[in-house]
């Protein structure tokens, strides 16, 4: 029995808990996508830093200078790789009868639930790296600003389009049956 909220007409403990929903992991390939995308970013950063020291006459290109700047960038890269790998299993989604749920984050974990009857629109997106691994992202839009929009990345072709159709179908249904 929930002691905190006794004034509510329904005891929250008797409602289906979001925590125990049937969560699915996203495709393993998406880990590679994230690693490649951040890899490209850090590589550009490394090259940029190198060029800056190499071609700038004011900075003396000693081994010391190179190792400090390039080393710290490489360290950040390593940290990023570790966090990305560790955080990957936290990326999970679940579909319940009337809402869609997505969780993510290692250091800052979050779980977002959006009821189907509040969804305005859903679309599939595919970035250049996604395309190499044949992965899609499902983008879910609600009314108002972007604060409550949701993106579920790393879905394969079939799951993605099935999910989108499902969500749109549910949205149309839950919105109208009154």
């Amino acid at each position, binding site marked *: 029995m929930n002691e*905190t909220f006794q004034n509510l007409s*329904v005891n929250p403990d008797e*409602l289906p808990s979001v925590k125990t929903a049937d969560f699915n992991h996203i495709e393993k390939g998406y880990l590679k996508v994230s690693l490649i995308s951040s890899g490209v970013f850090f590589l550009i950063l490394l090259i940029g830093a190198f060029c800056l020291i190499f071609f700038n006459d004011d900075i003396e290109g000693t081994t010391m200078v190179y190792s400090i700047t390039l080393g710290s960038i490489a360290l950040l890269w390593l940290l990023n790789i570790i966090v990305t790998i560790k955080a990957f299993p936290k990326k999970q989604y679940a579909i319940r009868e009337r*809402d869609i749920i997505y969780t993510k984050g290692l*250091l800052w974990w979050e779980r977002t*639930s959006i009821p189907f009857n*509040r969804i305005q629109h859903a679309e599939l997106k595919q970035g250049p790296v996604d395309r190499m691994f044949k992965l899609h992202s499902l983008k879910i839009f*609600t009314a*108002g600003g972007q604060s409550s929009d949701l993106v579920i990345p790393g879905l394969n072709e079939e799951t993605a389009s099935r999910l989108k159709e499902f969500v749109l179908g549910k949205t149309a249904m839950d919105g109208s049956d*009154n």
Partner: protein
Amino acid sequence: MEVTIDQYTSPQRQSRVAIGIILIKFLRMTIRSFWPILLSFFIGGRNNDSFGTIIGYIALGFAAFNLIGSVLTYFRFYFHIEDGAFIIDKGILKRTKTNIPFERIQTINFKQNILHQIFGVVSLEIDTAGAKKSELTIDALKKEDAEALRSFILKEKAQIESPETSSESVDIEENEEVILHLSVPDLFKVGISQNHLKSMGILFAFVFSTLNEVTEDVPELIAEELSGYDQIMNTGWVMFLASVIIVGIISFMYSLTTTVLGNYDLKLSIKQGGLKLVKGLLNREEISVNKKKVQVVSWSDNPIRMMFKMFTLQIEQASSAEADQLKSKIKVPGSYQTQVDSVVKAVFPEEFYRPETKHRVSKLLKYRLFFFIGLIPTVIGGGISYYYIEWQALYFLIWGLFIWLSISAYYRKRTYEVNDEFLKNNRGTFGHIYELTQLYKVQSVQIKQSWYQRRKRIATMVLSNAAGSVKVPFISIEEAEALESFILYRVENDRREWM
């Protein structure tokens, strides 16, 4: 009334006064973008060089261009009603024809600047949902015509959206009950209790941006101006105090004037389906609020306003674009508690508006906030300055103490209440802020945990709706999960319109 509506079925021009109003609008726009040139012309005019004269001719050319432009704009602007849609046909070089179906029209608001008021016309703003550029303006219409047009459109819109409702429910919309009329003494109370620090900031920003337009080197200019006052500057404290008092008085006058001008004769009334707000002296505005679009009602005070027992009431409506969110907030300064209550009861189901058990948030929030805003700056600031000013660095402890007291005050007020219909946030540091939101209008429920929060088994909950979001920080994870399931249940089982 039928006659006035019939006339809108064929393309119409605006009221003739529109020429003048468009001209003024054009001139203001030109002056706003070219005023540094105009200014330099007036200053440089004394030197009588040919460059100045050329600029003079250019300015004259612009004026003529504006005049012709506004006349043409007037004659090339038509609007009419056709097949349940509002149609605007306009443009001189690039002609555009805009067709807005009634069901996409969200609200129709009136605005009057001083010219409108003299000639008894209004400018009509039509807000539509969806599109980025979600607004259409008709510069001048006779007030009676505008009113007839608006009630016609809104009536048609209601018919289209819910054909089964009989017309009687639509017809009684003329009944209006004024719940708040800001009297002159109240207006001054509001002006006095404004946030004067904010207006000080606005003034500083204005002065600096103006200086920036005129000269490139603001710091140099200031240094130059001040160098003459070396003698006086040496008297240190006197000078400092005097300038503080002067800046204080100017900011005070500024916020008092803007409040009085902006909220003069403010009237908030309840009408069928929502609220209506009319306010302003030089620029008179009329804003309609649709009841079902209201997402959050909040009211807040500050230490001075607390003495007058007044609140600033804010009504947040659903809005399509991010940029519109500021505009869709309606502020009514100077509402008393009873008026706040009647507004809440007008837009929300009143049977659920009642005090509930106040749930506190975790004490860890207090310690956490103090750690980051109080302790760390005190230790770092004190530590560094110890090297320079030695024991005087202990002054930093005042900062720590001040933050501790503010955070304690904040924590004491930080509670939330929940029932089947509402979630109410109570917070505030020096004053009070109350936020009331309807649960079924929530469109996403988020539970967040930082690494620290996870260790302590607490979480932060964010509820987003079509106007923004409401946050409940640092509650136990069990509480957060109970709220999560309950709110989702409420949203998913409610069939009312939510925006």
